[in-house]
Structures are given as structure tokens and as C-alpha cells.
């Protein structure tokens, strides 16, 4: 075991990191739901309605996109909101991730 701790972020890199994060924030973050063979279509639709407050028609559109195309970009948000939505979707055991918008 090492006797000294190495900082995780070098002080001289702080500015670069924050600049990159600001740029990522401007582009926003994508909340993506991925297909799996185990979650029922009716369940996924229900979850989208609950988490995003969407009407059934919109929830079903995204559920079908997940089912037919393997994934659906559900929304583009700020970092905090994207994180919140992914947490909510994962609470329902859906495979949801957040990725920086390119």
C-alpha cells in the first residue's frame, strides 16, 4: 500500500477539465433507453409515462423505437436533469444511459 496519496486531478488541469465540461453542458446530454428482451412493452410504456409525464401515444412511440431500433434517445437535457432521468429509469430497471451530445 502506498504511503502517499496521488491527487486524482492534477491542479494544472483543472481549467481544461472545466472548459470541456462547460462545452459538454452547452451541447447537452442525451438520455438513451436500450432494448432488452425481458422488459414488457406495456411496462416500458408505463415507465416513460411516469418518468417524463408523457401522454401514452408519445410513450408508445419511444417504446417502439427501443423495441424496433434497439434504442431510443428519450430527451436532451442539462447534465443534472439527464442524471435525474437516468436515475429514475434505472429505478424501474430499464437499461438507460446518458451520453454527451456530439
Amino acid at each position, binding site marked *: 500500500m502506498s504511503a502517499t496519496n496521488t491527487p486524482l*486531478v492534477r491542479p494544472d488541469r483543472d481549467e481544461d477539465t472545466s472548459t470541456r465540461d462547460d462545452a459538454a453542458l452547452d451541447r447537452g446530454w442525451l438520455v438513451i433507453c436500450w432494448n432488452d*428482451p425481458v422488459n414488457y412493452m406495456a411496462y416500458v410504456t*408505463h415507465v416513460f409515462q411516469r418518468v417524463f409525464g408523457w401522454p401514452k401515444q408519445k410513450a408508445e412511440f419511444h417504446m417502439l423505437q427501443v423495441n424496433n431500433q434497439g434504442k431510443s434517445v428519450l430527451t436532451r437535457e442539462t447534465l443534472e436533469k439527464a*442524471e435525474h432521468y437516468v436515475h429514475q429509469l434505472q429505478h424501474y430497471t430499464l437499461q438507460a*444511459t446518458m451520453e454527451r451530445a456530439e
Partner: protein
Amino acid sequence: MKLLAADKDWLRFQLSDGEKAVLLDVLGLYPCVPPAYHRLSREPRDNADRERQRLLDEALAEQRAQHRRLLQALLHNPDTFRKVGTRWQMTLRRGDFDWLLQVLNDVRVGSWIALGSPEQLPRKLPRDAAQAAHACAMELAGLFQMVLLDAVEGETAP
């Protein structure tokens, strides 16, 4: 198990002795999904991503603990199950609906993971006893989920 009645505060289901026993067995399996299953990002790039993953892991651990408490409270509440004639009536408050759905889905998905996360769900009961138990748990959790979903779906259908 079928929906008997509902109002703005609660939903009431009718179950046989066998259905009640199976439901309690399925709920007793919670939690099933291994914590490592939940990924915030497919390709964590930096320390910020790892920190966000840590926060998600904490939030989900807290949720599991909370669900266990809620489940114990629900199952020990004398108003939840009531014997009427030869059948049971299970009364759920509206506020219990979504977390119970999450618990059942955890058992369904966790059992699927225990089966090796197959792309094709098993059409027959596996011969291996442990695998057969996982397959049964997955199907039964799904069955109860669909009864719950149908109950609220019926209310919003035109």
C-alpha cells in the same frame, strides 16, 4: 389474481390461496438484480463519469433498502390481505403501486440475469433445477406485473 374494485385511493385484487402463496414467494426473492447491472454510461470516460456512477450506485442501494422496508410494512399490514370466503382480497394503496411494480420488475430482470441474460427467453422449463427456479420466478413476476398494469390501464382506456 384479478382486479375486483378500485377508487381514487386504492385498488383491490382477488387471489386464491395458491396465488397469494406464489406472490409472497416472488416478493420474497427481492432484490435480485446485481448492483453492477446498472450502468450510467456505456463508456465511462473520466473521473466525473465514475463519480456519477458512484452516485447512481448509492441512490439504487438506498432505493433497495427503502423497498425492503416498504415491502415488510405492506406484507405485515393486516389491511393488505383479508380472507373473504375461500379467497383472499389484497388491497393496495395507489401510492404502493409503482414501487411494487419496480420490485416485481427487479425480480423479473434479476431472474433473467441469473439465467445468463439470454436474447431468447426460454420457451420450456430448463432441466436444471436452479435454472428452472429462475425461469419460473421471471415468468411469475411478469405475470403479476401485467395484472397490476392491466388494472390501471383499464382505468385510462377509452
